[in-house]
């Protein structure tokens, strides 16, 4: 006799259902996906060339030909913002990836091994948290030139700390859970325990904080670019565009407003998505009571 097996609802499915009820988070997700798509396709869909100048035109407010206006060299703002977005988003994702890798490894090792190793590793994190990182980054950028690769590394080096703390906290909590003890008592190897029991239960917070790190990183990049220490011309990023915009904001406010709004909108979208993910994956609000 075969009985019909009921399909269970995993915690991931639960979280997805909860996320879908959060309209702001979904909106954030949609915006991010749209931005990524546009950035990828920019070389093909940008209305004008990146370098295309029109000195006779000069700076003009939004019009039918130039939806977001032009800058003082007559370059189309929409195009500039699109290309700037490519850079800003790339820095955002790559630097976050750097922070993610370092942070997760560091935190996981510290949390899993525990004892003295953990004490030392976390003390280092504590000390680094207290350092004036802004200063180091400024120094690094000045000293080693405006190398985009270095920019990734520098920013990643600052952001991994929070990720390490989150992962370590989660891993330590998990280690104390009885199902992990049960896994030990079954004789499973360390690696099997990590793979089947620890990692799947750590993914939740990691996903949330990765999503929240990206805007943090993008802000840092914009900050540096604004000071003149980040992305250098001829490349541009949103931070750089805002810098230019500030210089001429009295006469040509749109040069500041459009890049500014785009940056803010992106940060909004990412933060709402991250918040939504955090609420969806929070075990306290799940079916478990």
């Amino acid at each position, binding site marked *: 006799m075969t*009985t019909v097996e*009921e399909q*269970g609802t995993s915690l991931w499915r639960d979280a997805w259902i909860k996320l879908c009820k959060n309209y702001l988070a979904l909106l954030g997700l949609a915006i991010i996906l749209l931005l990524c798509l546009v950035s990828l396709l920019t070389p093909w869909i940008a209305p004008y060339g990146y370098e295309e100048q029109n000195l006779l035109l000069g700076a003009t407010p939004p019009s039918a030909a130039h939806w977001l206006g032009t800058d003082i060299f007559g370059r189309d703002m929409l195009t500039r913002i699109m290309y700037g977005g490519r850079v800003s988003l790339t820095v955002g994702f790559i630097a976050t990836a750097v922070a993610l890798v370092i942070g997760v490894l560091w935190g996981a090792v510290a949390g899993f091994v525990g004892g003295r190793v953990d004490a030392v590793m976390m003390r280092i994190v504590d000390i680094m948290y207290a350092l004036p990182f802004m200063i180091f980054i400024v120094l690094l950028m000045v000293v080693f030139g405006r190398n985009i690769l270095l920019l990734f590394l520098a920013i990643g080096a600052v952001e991994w700390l929070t990720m390490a703390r989150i992962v370590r906290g989660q891993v330590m909590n998990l280690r104390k859970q009885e199902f992990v*003890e049960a896994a030990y*008592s079954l*004789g499973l190897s360390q690696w099997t325990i990590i793979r089947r029991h620890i990692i799947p239960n750590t993914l939740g917070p990691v996903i949330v904080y990765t999503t929240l790190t990206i805007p943090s990183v993008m802000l840092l990049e914009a900050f540096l670019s604004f000071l003149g220490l980040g992305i250098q011309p001829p490349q541009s990023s949103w931070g750089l565009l805002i810098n230019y915009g500030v210089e001429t904001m009295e006469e040509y406010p749109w040069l500041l407003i459009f890049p500014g709004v785009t940056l803010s909108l992106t940060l909004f979208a990412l933060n709402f998505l991250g918040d939504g993910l955090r609420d969806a994956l929070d075990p306290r609000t799940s*079916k478990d009571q």
Partner: protein
Amino acid sequence: MALLEVEGLKVYFHTRNGVVKAVDDVSFSVDCGETLAIVGESGSGKSVTCYSLLDLLPKPPARIEGGTALFDGEDLLTCDSTRMRHFRGNDIAVIFQDPMTSLNPFISIGEQLIEPLIYHPDPARKQTRAAARKRAIELLKEVGIIDPHSRVDCYPHEFSGGMRQRVMIAMALINEPRLLICDEPTTALDVTIQAQILALIKKLQETRDVAVIFISHDLGVVAGIADKVLVMCEGTIREAGDTDKIFYNSQNDYTQKLLAAIPEGAKQLPNRAQPDNVLVEVSNLKTHFTDYNKARHQDNVIRAVDGVSLSIQRGEILGLVGESGSGKSTLGRSILQLAPTTAGQVSFDGTSLTGLSAKQLVPWRRMMQMIFQDPYASLNPRMTVYQTLAEPLLYHGLANRKTIDQQVRQLMDDVGLVHSQLRKYPHEFSGGQRQRIAIGRAIATKPELIIADEPVSALDVTIQAQILDLILDLVERHNLTMLFISHDLSVVRYISDRVMVMSRGVIVEQGVTEELWENPQQAYTQQLLRAIPIADPKLERSRLASM
């Protein structure tokens, strides 16, 4: 008219998954000097009933759908918030379940004690700090806190569990309330402390003539102190009446089921222990932990297990009983090599396990398994039942891809679970069902020894009875040897052949279960046995009176 008359109370919770009828048409009354016990399992609505009287429920999900609660003629359910403040802490006071979380850790207990006095809503009864402090010290003395003058400025973390509950009691009584609601006040306490607190509450009630509502899941606890009993299940009253009638002459199925589920008496099944065949030998085992005190840069040493020697005979169920902090859980884990031992030796079937590496232990791990206490934390929430049960079988090579399916189903049958639930996740099961899964996982590798660490402590009493019977059945059928750890003496007596009493890291006394019960030798054992609440009102009353 009685002091409190509740009529037709309905409290519903409006959650995103639908409406939960937490309390559905409940009526009762309590009068001065009377103790009403409200008894039920988790989810019965007993706490919600009483919290709704004082508007202490979280309002968005909870809503009072109907009914009246007349306190001295005034309806508590419809009065405004200012009037409610007059009742709270003043006419009606509450003692909560967990004194650790119910006291503010940042404020001294003295300050928390005097708050009802210095912030009294009635200006005529508001007291100055000096006067209130005096009163607080008096009350601390009355509830049995030694040296109240200096202790009054201490913080909650400086008190033990029992002392904290005494402070909560003092705090509730400081304004001379007329009704005292006690929400499971002894559930979080050790059994010896529980007995003291029960006696204290009884004494205080007698001197003050207050009405008491005592909420509990444990019928034994209320047997000695209640005048009337209300039995609740899923929001409705199943039976109500005088204590003697409920305990000795119940007319209701549910009540009878509750009473029957309480473990009573000795183990029914025969003792299968083989005295000449020792499975586990423990010699002078010590497990010490160091706790790093960040602020003082020092190490505290906690001697969880401090020199324990014992032997477990093949085929027996050995009970290990002790209060919190006794080290019994650590001992169980140390035997299983799950906790790092500091000294001593553990040998299994003649071979010493101490000092073996994790890799060398693997074949031994198959032979000894553990059942954990918390059914919510002992299963990986991301694995289905199937995966949880299959993992040990596949890892130890006891099944291959062809046979695994059938073997997992066999395990499900063994522990009483339905096959259709195979692909479900832990959070979709009840506590009792989860424990069955955990037991299934433990017996999957066909071990010889199972250490059960408080396997039924987190379960309701009716479910507890089922799981205990399941465990006994499995031990019989699979020829298991078991170490059964619990703080609940009645449960241990019901299930074990021999028993050991542990306190502060050492074994205080051991012996055949029934002999120990009849004739305890050590003072600590005697104290423990004396403190067990029995679900027999006459016996309980005399026991409490003698304390």
